[in-house]
């Protein structure tokens, strides 16, 4: 069984397992807007495989992380739409 723990998405706790990506955690939290486009429109994930860069979020303070390519870590702090 994969290890279970929680991460925070925009400050709210979300229960995840270690085999989940940060993107899955974000969507599980009910958040659909991951980032703002250069003209300010809401954007969500598109390709799911690290190519389109639409799922960029801030993880543990580091900006522009592709959330579909990063596995959840214990107490990970994920912030969207920054």
């Amino acid at each position, binding site marked *: 069984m994969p290890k279970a723990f929680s991460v925070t998405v925009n400050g709210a706790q979300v229960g*995840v*397992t270690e*085999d*989940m*990506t940060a*993107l*899955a*955690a974000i*969507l*599980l939290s009910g958040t*659909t*807007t*991951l980032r703002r*486009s*250069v*003209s300010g*429109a*809401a*954007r*969500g*994930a*598109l*390709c*799911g*495989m*690290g*190519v*389109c*860069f*639409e799922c*960029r979020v801030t993880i543990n303070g580091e900006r*522009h992380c592709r959330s*579909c*390519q990063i*596995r959840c870590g214990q107490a990970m702090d994920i912030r969207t739409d920054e």
Partner: protein
Amino acid sequence: MNNSRRSFDVLVVGAGPAGIAGACCAAEAGVRVGVVDNNLRAGGQIWRGETRDSHLAEAASWLRRLASSPAEILTPMEVFAQPETGRLTATSSDGLCELSYKKLILCTGARERFLPFPGWTLPNVMGAGGLQAVVKSGMDITGKKVVIAGSGPLLLAVAAHLRAHGADVRTIAEQAPWSRLIRFGMAVASHGRKISQALQLKKQLSRIAFRAGCWVTAAEGNGKVESVTLRTESKTWKEACNYLACGFHLVPNTELASLLGCELRAGFVRTDNFQESSVSGIYCAGEPTGIGGLELSIAEGQIAGFAAAGQRERAQEYFGERKSQRRFSMALECAFMLRDELRPLPSAETIVCRCEDVKFGRLKEQSSWRAAKLQTRCGMGPCQGRICGPAVEFLFGWKAESARPPIFPVAVESLAATGCVE
């Protein structure tokens, strides 16, 4: 930033089925092999999330074979430049890595083709393979209403997968007309395995509306997609949904091959009988040589692996399998050709380049891809034209220019360390 150096006789870039097969064969032939992939684990998109214990017998068997082979698996690691012949640079969470090789096998796979239509930038409009990848990575799709649209056999596989995970799949809208799909069915009828896969899919998809000659003209919603407009030649209607999963078949990832000077033909990497590209010592296998699916990728990967390890006789054992699978590849290309009605879908206000928010109306005023880049920044964002490039090619006929390093965005200090910038 930590820097590390690794050296291999055969380096494989991409750990999907072609790369796994290539790495296993080369390593079992006794040379020193490394296989690098930018995803979290080996398996590629088709075997994303599968393990050595997978219920998919073929995935489990190849992943076991890779794990027990002497090949070194380097994931996640993203190759972005070749500062000199025989040496690639890559980034990983530990920092920069230099990868030296004598022979290289490129198994960089494919991505979905996306075409712009009004509303396609709304959250919860994703690729078909995109939504599947996210569900494979742990997202809960239970009870969600999903419309699947676009083109290609992937749509059916995605529908079956999402349904098995509890999604309420409303409609599958395949843009190709029935006439082409039937011809495709006849062409692959000689492939016993493909037929049994198709019959199994049909069972899994019972009671889902499959419409051929049907396409999305718009997605609507407040802050996220709430409905889509679907069209056939005879009617137009709306369908409510929580997700639109929409992709128009696949385009090959040829950026690295192009950077290394490999010759492309009609958008694919040209290879000889032993999967060697126009650059001596650089091999290519799988989707970058032609979209052909799992079995062709594995056959080509085995040929490339043995050939790169100097065992050309063993490589030849897979020529027959490759030949038979290539017939499927040609049938695929013909069946899922894009219809002309998809070209006028974007309005002047529809975004085409999602990175730089370049609208269709502005692109229409340009004369070439180069002019579009200079005047509008189309294709100049972090995806480097991987998403808008194939769309622009379909809409305007402009071909993307050759790749330049870095082929993925990297931190300035990484670039400086490779000598790509001064």
